[in-house]
């Protein structure tokens, strides 16, 4: 019984329909978390450089994405 369930689960997770949907939803979740964290970091006085380095992106990237929204506090 358990084996059957495992197989069923395995089959469903390799279904691109579900898998791609999960990736898309994950991207939305990630964007939302990134926005919240960047906002928070700016509110705490973090520099764009420091935020960018923790995110593993360039300062320009993070500033282009959030500069207008978060601004200087």
């Amino acid at each position, binding site marked *: 019984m358990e084996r059957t369930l495992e197989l069923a689960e395995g089959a469903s*997770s390799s279904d691109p329909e579900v898998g791609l949907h*999960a990736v898309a939803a*994950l991207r*939305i*979740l990630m964007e939302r978390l990134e926005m*919240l964290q960047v906002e928070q970091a700016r509110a705490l006085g973090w520099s764009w450089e420091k935020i960018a380095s923790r995110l593993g992106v360039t300062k320009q990237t993070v500033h282009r994405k959030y500069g207008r929204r978060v601004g200087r506090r």
Partner: protein
Amino acid sequence: MFERFTGEARAAVAQAQEHARRLGHRYIGCEHLLLAAASTAEPASAALRERGVTPERVETEIVRLVGLGQAANLFSASDREALASIGIDLDVVRARVEAAFGPDAFTRGGPAACRSQPAVRKNPVALLRRARRGGRHQHAGTTPSGHIPFTPRAKKSLLLSLREAETRHDNYIGLEHLTLALVGMRDGAVPPILSALGASQATLRAAILDRYRKAS
């Protein structure tokens, strides 16, 4: 340019904003303009309705495509299931995020309404600028009030309606020009909506032009 819009065309644009507001969307897109364009007493609207592009059916497709507004719909039930399939319990994530960032962390101005707006999604600055506006003019979790911005593509469709008027040597921008511009859109929400309703863009265009040829 807007001063050249006829009363009917202006009313339709205003109506599009009302539709956006009613559906809880934080932007006015081509889909809202199409919904308004299908609803008037003008010949262009009649031409749309005769070919199955009725306000009811357009609205159904908008909701199917974009969802109802409010950031509460940031994740649909199927998103939830898809995330669960890779071991992420959205409710747990949500509870923790809300504990850290406040109860509106998932719902305050954000990319929710932009999900089926690829042009905007490609441009994070525009997206975030819009999100910020949403936050300023809107009480969280209620129907959007105050100013609702046009998407860049909706603005483009208004510009294209001017082109339609110019092409036809009309010195005003009427509902027929707006409707022609909308049914001619190559991207955005209009093509999938029309195709779901089984209406070809070329046929609609010809039908609208035919109406006005007879009328003049």
